[in-house]
Structure formats: structure tokens, C-alpha cells
């Protein structure tokens, strides 16, 4: 395997570890906290807002510097989404995602970061979520 490819794979693993560490430290693997944030009419828990704020600050500043370069360090080009239209799949998808997120308190990142706790709910959620993802392509043909 060429050295640069090895580094690329290592970079993915390292980014994933930092991501999962952040999820578990921030409290986002706690579904009560996430549902508490979404519960505006109850005892509102603002923790998720701090996570988003911390994440956006670092990403916004980091992207500003990185995207000035012609290419990333270990690859030929940036793969940044180019679609700009607000279409039906985007809106329907976001509504479905938000509903499921509220129902359980898990979005994809925290569910995966929480696998190690070994809770049955998490171990059921992750594979069903993957099935849902694989259904998206056939379902999108309806639109």
C-alpha cells in the first residue's frame, strides 16, 4: 500500500477517534440530555447548544484557513457538496430525521460513540439506522 494511502486511512481513524471522544465527553451520548434539549416545554437542557457552539466555532475558523489551500494535505482535492437547491428530499429527510432523533434522543454520531456502553437500545438502534440509510435510495425514487 502506498505511504500516502496509509496516512489517509490513519487520518480517517484518528479523526473518528477525536470525534467519538468529543461526543462522549460532551454528554451527547446521553439520550436524556438530547431529549432534554428538544423538550422546550419541559425542564430545558441547553447542553446540546454548547456542543454545537464549540463544534461550529472550531470548524468555521478551521475551514476558513483550510479551504484557501488548493488541496488537502493527503489527497488531490476537496470533496465539498456543490448542491444548492432546497429540494423535497432535503426537507422530507430532515423532518424524518428530526422526528426519529426526538423519539430516541440519538442521531448517528452519538449512537455510534455510545456502542461501548453495551445498552440493548443502542445495539438495536445502530443496525436499524443503517437499514434506514440503505432504504433511502429506493425511497428517493418516489420523489
Amino acid at each position: 500500500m502506498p505511504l500516502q494511502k496509509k496516512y489517509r486511512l490513519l487520518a480517517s481513524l484518528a479523526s473518528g477517534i477525536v470525534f467519538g471522544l468529543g461526543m462522549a465527553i460532551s454528554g451527547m451520548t446521553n439520550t436524556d440530555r438530547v431529549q432534554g434539549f428538544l423538550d422546550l416545554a419541559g425542564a430545558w437542557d441547553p447542553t446540546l447548544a454548547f456542543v454545537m457552539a464549540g463544534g461550529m466555532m472550531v470548524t468555521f475558523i478551521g475551514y476558513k484557513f483550510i479551504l484557501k489551500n488548493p488541496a488537502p494535505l493527503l489527497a488531490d482535492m476537496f470533496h465539498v457538496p456543490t448542491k444548492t437547491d432546497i429540494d423535497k428530499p432535503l426537507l422530507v429527510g430532515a423532518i424524518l430525521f428530526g422526528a426519529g432523533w426526538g423519539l430516541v434522543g440519538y442521531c448517528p454520531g452519538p449512537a455510534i460513540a455510545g456502542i461501548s456502553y453495551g445498552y440493548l437500545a443502542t445495539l438495536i438502534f445502530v443496525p436499524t439506522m443503517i437499514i434506514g440509510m440503505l432504504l433511502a435510495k429506493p425511497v428517493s425514487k418516489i420523489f
Partner: protein
Amino acid sequence: MHPFVLALIGGGLVGLAAVMMMGLKGRIAGVSGILSGAFTDSSGERLWRILFVLGIAIGGAIPELISDSFVPPAPDTSTLLVIIGGLTVGLGTGLGSGCTSGHGICGISRLSPRSMVATCTFMAAGFICVFLLKHVFGG
């Protein structure tokens, strides 16, 4: 440490992961897109996706090795609702091309209109869902 401080630090680490992914590999650190691509993308594009997702599971396990206080309570949801929730989260992020990380953190940081609309929409849907769950159907 106060939960809000941990949240800010944890969020900062998620941001750092997003910056690493873009700076090194030129990719958006969107968990739903990377995970679904691990199953559907061409064979040469699968291993890095699998490693990123594996990394999240490994990273998520580190804090609990340091202190039990990082172990949250089990999700308080019936198995039926977990299955429905898993399917809708998967289907929704697939159709909507992203989740909290890809649209919420990476997309908004790029000032992408699609991501801003998606984030507002899934937040609103989440608010409504939890309102119905906790205050109408009395969860």
C-alpha cells in the same frame, strides 16, 4: 467539571475532527454520509469510511475508561420506538443528505443554505416530536 464546559470542550473536539477530516482528506465529517457510503460506495472508498466510523466507537469508549461519570443512563425508550427511531433517522439522513454533524456543524460552518435549512427543519421536527412524546402522549 460543569456539564456545559464539558459540552463546549467536547463540541470543540468534534470541530477538531471535522477540521482534521477536511484538512487531511478533504472530506466533510458527516457521520450519516460516511456511514452509509461504507456500504454503498465503490470498494476503494469503503475502508476509510469504515475506519472513521470505527474510530468514533473507539473514541466514544475512552472517557468511560477514565471515569464512570461519563457513562450515561440507558436510553429510556421502548424497543419498538427504538426500531422506529433508528429507521427514521437512517432514512431521513439518507434522503436529506446529512445529519447533525454534516449539516449542523460542517454545513453551517461552510454557510451552506441547504445545511441551514436542513438543520432548522430537523431541529423543529425534533422539538415537535419531543413535545408530542412528553406532553401530549405523556412519555
